[in-house]
């Protein structure tokens, strides 16, 4: 947003390998425009970007908010519905659910502070994920890993230093969740030495099966 531009005007002017950060951001915004132009995931995504002309920090925050809604709903429903949750899994899911709720609140506040309007929570359907603990933790791992990749992919397009710092403080917690869930699943806490970033379209494709509206 224009305010954050003014806060760090020098960022826009710095030349990096032939492109400026500003033009990189513009490129990101154009890519986002392409995403919601062709996306079939439903109105929530369009709403997320519509108010911010092709992405921008508020668009990114609303994108993140949607993912956090999804995660928060996942753990809430899982805690209600999975019948064979053992003590460790229950404790972990409870902790994570609380964190995701705080992310939702934090992002909503951040969007409002930046002059935007938080998107509404999507309607979700996680299919058979709550049939048993194994299924629950399996999809949890996918959601957390995807969350990490989504934030990492969006991070470089964030203009405001403050918003980037907030996104960073959330993604690190997502990564911690991912590692803990992976340990529960007897998987290594890392996939590789570098968490891969995903762009918005890739993330939307990944979560599409769970979003009903």
């Amino acid at each position, binding site marked *: 947003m224009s305010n954050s531009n003014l806060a760090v005007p020098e960022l826009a002017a710095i030349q*990096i390998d032939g492109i400026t950060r500003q033009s990189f951001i513009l490129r990101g915004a154009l890519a986002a425009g392409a995403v919601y132009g062709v996306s079939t995931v439903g109105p929530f995504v369009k709403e997320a970007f519509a108010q911010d002309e092709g992405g921008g920090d508020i668009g990114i925050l609303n994108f993140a908010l949607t993912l956090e809604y999804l995660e928060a709903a996942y753990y809430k429903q899982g805690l209600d519905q999975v019948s064979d949750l053992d003590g460790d899994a229950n404790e972990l899911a409870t902790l994570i659910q609380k964190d995701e709720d705080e992310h939702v609140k934090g992002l909503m506040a951040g969007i409002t502070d930046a002059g935007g309007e938080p998107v509404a929570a999507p309607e979700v359907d996680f299919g058979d994920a709550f049939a048993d603990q194994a299924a629950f933790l399996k999809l949890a791992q996918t959601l957390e890993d995807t969350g990490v990749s989504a934030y990492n992919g969006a991070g470089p397009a964030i203009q405001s230093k403050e918003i980037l710092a907030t996104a*960073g*403080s959330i993604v690190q917690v*997502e*990564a911690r969740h991912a590692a803990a869930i992976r340990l529960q699943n007897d998987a*290594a806490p890392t996939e*590789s030495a570098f968490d891969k970033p995903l762009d918005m379209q890739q993330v939307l494709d990944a979560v599409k099966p769970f979003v009903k509206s």
Partner: protein
Amino acid sequence: MSKQDTEAPAATERGALEELSRDDASRKRFLKMVGGAGAASAFAIFLAACGDDDDDKKDDSTAASDDKSGGGAKSDIDIVNYALTLEYLETAFYNDVLESGIVTDKNIGELATTFAKEEQEHVDALKAAVEKLGGKPVAAPETKFPLESEEEVLKLAATVENLGAAAYLGAAPDIKSPEILAAALSIHSVEGRHAAALNTATGQTIVPDGAFAKPASMDEVLKAVKPFIVS
């Protein structure tokens, strides 16, 4: 660490083994190594961060034009070298731990082996990133860690990883190049994963700061690691 001094330019500012910054072969070796480590998509990030051969030319150092900001703001080269120092430290720590034979628990041993490998990959990637920015990678510090017992080692590992994650978080918003930022973020979350795994192993909460991780400043981090740096 490669010690090739192929064509050492006279002016070295920071140390001895930086000459591989002009060694194209070492860059290719690095790229091959990262690619071969099964990090295919991560590899793409570092191709971006390191550039391809086409723009691999000296005047890439325009990226370091923030040299003029010498006083207050840190340049990307400074930040990446700072991260590199921390990764050297972490790599040395795990290597010392593994060599000491103090870890007897099989699961912990596996974690330490994996993390040692990943920290080394971070070292290699960050060195290449400094070079890409036209800077010279700092030399590895000489380190010494108290390795008293398995329990103490685990605790120290958790401390170091939590600190590393906080360090990246503190530094990331100051990074100017989107490519370097992308690279730093991809390492940051891995440090967070390491920290969570070690917190689990030491019976601590995986999220010591709650739902929002706290950053650490460069000063805080350097002060915290000072006891482990001999030179």
